[in-house]
């Protein structure tokens, strides 16, 4: 039960992106299309789960003073492996994500979870934490890219990442005359992020007040 609660908290309340403000750089940059967001989310989940598992497995033999360099080398190796796999099997995704795949190395979520969770917990717990946090990140980027793509182009377009020509979904939600291209630009990214973060914060205050009222009633 406790594990499940942890898992759920990562998705909404303690969402790594909108709640804890980790990994904002890539969130703002790659959320121009839903396709990119799904690809980036998958890459982050893979790196996060693997790095959490490896770091928690070796946590007892790594000396405390040099743990950060050790963690960073492990993460860099995993990211490089994933980058080479994406380059080989999903070249279109590689072009559109560009430098943000290697930059997963310095994504605060990954080093943050290694330091705060994986270096203190067992392998299974760390893997679950990685999945939860990774999903939280993925949900955040997909939500943001959905808003931005639909508002700026009016079209929701999802293609098979391994094969460009295969279009899975292509629906027009807003007629082309009524789109707001601004949302495709950095300005739109910042505004969307600010409003989503504010919405989460409002939801949190609301939930806290409700819990408080309930606690009073019980008394």
């Amino acid at each position: 039960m406790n594990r499940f609660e942890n898992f759920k908290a990562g998705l909404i309340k303690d969402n790594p992106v909108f709640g804890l403000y980790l990994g904002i750089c890539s969130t703002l940059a790659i959320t121009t299309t839903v396709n990119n967001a799904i690809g980036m989310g998958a890459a982050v989940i893979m790196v996060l789960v693997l790095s959490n598992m490896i770091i928690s497995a070796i946590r007892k033999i790594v000396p405390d003073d040099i743990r950060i360099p050790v963690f960073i080398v492990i993460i860099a190796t995993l990211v490089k492996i994933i980058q080479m796999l994406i380059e080989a099997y999903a070249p279109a995704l590689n072009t559109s994500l560009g430098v943000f795949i290697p930059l997963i190395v310095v994504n605060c979520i990954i080093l943050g979870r290694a330091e705060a969770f994986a270096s203190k917990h067992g392998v299974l717990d760390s893997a679950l934490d990685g999945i939860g946090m990774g999903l939280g990140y993925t949900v955040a980027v997909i939500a943001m890219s959905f808003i931005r793509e639909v508002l700026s182009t009016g079209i929701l377009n999802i293609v098979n990442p391994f094969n460009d020509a295969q279009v899975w979904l292509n629906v027009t939600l807003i007629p082309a005359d009524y789109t707001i291209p601004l949302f495709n630009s950095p300005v739109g990214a910042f505004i969307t992020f600010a409003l989503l973060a504010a919405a989460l914060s409002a939801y949190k205050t609301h939930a806290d007040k409700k819990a408080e009222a309930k606690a009073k009633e019980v008394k």
Partner: protein
Amino acid sequence: MSELITLFVTSVLINNVVLNQFLGMCPFMGVSKKRSSAIGMGLAVIFVIVVAALITYAIYYWILVPLNLQYMDLIAFILVIASLVQLTEMFIKKTSPALYKSLGVYLPLITTNCVVLNVCLVNISNSYDFAHMLVYSIGTPIGFALVLYIFSTIRERLDIANVPNPLKGNPIAMIVAAIMAMAFSGFAGIV
């Protein structure tokens, strides 16, 4: 020569790392609450990026390319950056304890500043020659420091403003960043 000046202006203003490429958001949000720490952070980042770019450029072309180890770039670069930041920290601590104190925890955090790694990677992937590499590696952190400083002056004013509750803190700062990005997109016409 004019090409180099164009590259400099582009990397400082038009293709600004923070407002246009969304890099270095963590220190941008974290260190921008006070003007003095914004200046210290900006200078430290300029120094680290220029030195890191020079070292990684040399490592890539003198060690990794001759040995055919190009795929090790990411791992080699991040190690260089991590040890360089550590070295800077030790050096500042010994020579100028006052500066060390004012920078505090932000100094070690430069390691995870994505601008540093991004500059090193872009130098290689765009196959810049030495002059272009130098100009790009100086211009990018100057753009970062400039925007960080402007942002911190706005945020000092924001502290006394009356902001709706859910927007308090980071969300309103993001909206400020959005407006700054809008202003900076006006520079696009220069070059």
